[in-house]
C-alpha cells in the first residue's frame, strides 16, 4: 500500500493506517476495518488488552492483537483460527491474526 502516514493521534487510537485518501474502495476498507474490530472485541471477550492494530499488505489484512493470559492456550488458538477463517471468508481477502499475550496491559502512566 502506498501511503500517506496517518497522524500519530489516529494511530494511538488504533485507527486504520494506509493510503485511504483518493483510492477506489477506500470506504469499503474502512467498513471492513470497523467490522474486524468489533468482531475481535466480541470474540475475545474481556481479554483484548489494546485496540487491535490493523495493517494491509497488498490484499491481505494483518491484525496484531494483544490478549491477556486469562484464556488457556488451546482456546486462544482455536479462537484465532476461527476468526481468521471467518473473516477471510467474509471479506474475501486473506486475514492473518497475530496474537501476543501479556500478563497485564502495558501501563503508560499511573494517575
Amino acid at each position, binding site marked *: 500500500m502506498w501511503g500517506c502516514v496517518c497522524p500519530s493521534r489516529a494511530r494511538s487510537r488504533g485507527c486504520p493506517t494506509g493510503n485511504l485518501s483518493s483510492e477506489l474502495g477506500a470506504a469499503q*476498507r474502512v467498513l471492513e476495518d470497523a467490522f474486524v474490530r468489533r468482531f475481535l472485541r466480541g470474540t475475545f471477550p474481556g481479554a483484548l488488552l489494546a485496540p487491535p492494530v490493523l*495493517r494491509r499488505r497488498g*490484499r491481505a489484512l494483518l491484525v496484531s492483537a*494483544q490478549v491477556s493470559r486469562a484464556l488457556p492456550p488451546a482456546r486462544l488458538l482455536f479462537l484465532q483460527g476461527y476468526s481468521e477463517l471467518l473473516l477471510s471468508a467474509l471479506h474475501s481477502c486473506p486475514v492473518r491474526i497475530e496474537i501476543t499475550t501479556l500478563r497485564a496491559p*502495558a501501563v503508560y*502512566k499511573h494517575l
Partner: protein
Amino acid sequence: MAPVSGVSLAGCWVMLSRCRGTVVVAPRFGAAAYSSAPAVSGKEGQQGEALARRRGRTQQFTRSHIPPRTEKMAVDQDWTSVYPTAAVFKPASVPLPIRMGYPVKRGVPPPKEGNLELMKIPNFLHLTPPAIKKHCEALKDFCTEWPSALDSDEKCEQHFPIEIETTDYVSSGTSIRNPKARVVTLRVKLSNLNLDDHAKKKLVKLVGERYCKDTDILTITTDRCPRRRQNYDYGIHLLTVLYHESWKTEMWESEKAEEDMEEYIWENSRSQKNALDTLLRIKAAENVSSVTKEELLASEVVKNYRNSVIALKNEGETENNVSQYKETVKKLLNIQASP
C-alpha cells in the same frame, strides 16, 4: 514426533506449538517435564505456559515463565531465519533494548514489551543487507544480461527513439483493476524522425501544445480507449498519421500568410522594402549612378541590417540585439557617431 493434541486432558496441561506440532506433556506425578522443542519462539513462551513441574512439589501447577528467545540468541546467528518475511515486531524475538513512545514526565519512553507503537510501525527487520544479498542471489537465475551494444544513453535513443510510459496501480483492495492504468504516453524526439523543413513546421502546427521546443520532444498522451493495449495502438497510429500528413502539401498551404509564419523572414518583408527604398533615394539624392537592387542586397551593410532585424524579431529584445541593430542602422544610413 508426538501428535498435536488440542484437547486439554484431565489433569494435564498441554503446551501447543503452532509451527511444529510438538507436545509437551507434564504428568501429574513425579517425572520431570520435558523441555520444549527448540522451535518454540518467545511468542509461544509468553503465550502458552509450559508446565515445568517442579520435582516433588505439590499437585498445584506453577506457571513458570519461559524466558524470551532473545536470551538464547547467539551474536552471529542467522538473522534471516528469525525474520524471513515481513512480520510484526516481536519483542521476545528482537534482541535489542528498544524503547518507543512519548516519555512519561521525568521518565523514559515505554519499553518494548507490550509496546503498541512498535507493533504499529512498519519494520524492516526482514530486509537486512544479508537478506537482500540472498534475495539478489535467488533472483539472478531469472535475469538476463543487459545487451552490451547499448552501453550509453545516446545509443539507446538512437536504436529506440520512441519512449512509451504506462503506469500500474496497486491498492489494498480485493480488485486489481484500476481505470487509471489505461493511460499511455508516447514520447519521441523530432530530430529522430525523417522530416524536412516544411514537414517539421507542419507537424509542429498540427500537434500544437504537445511539442516542446526546448527539448524537441513530442508527447502524445492517449486515454480515450478502455484498454491499455488499445491506447498504445491508437498512439502509434497518431504518430504515423502525423508523420505522413506533414510530408504532404495541400493546395491551401500556398495561402500561408505572413501571420502564420513561425519565424521572421526578411526577404519580401516590409523592412526590406523600406531599407531598399531609403537606400535608393539616398543614392539618387547623391546623384550616384543607379545601383540595382541586387547589388544593394548583396552589400555588407544591408546584410548586417538584415541579420540584426531577424535577430530582434526572432529572439526578442535583448541588450545585445538592440545595440547591434543600432550599429547596423548607423552604418546603413552613414550616420557618424556623435562626438
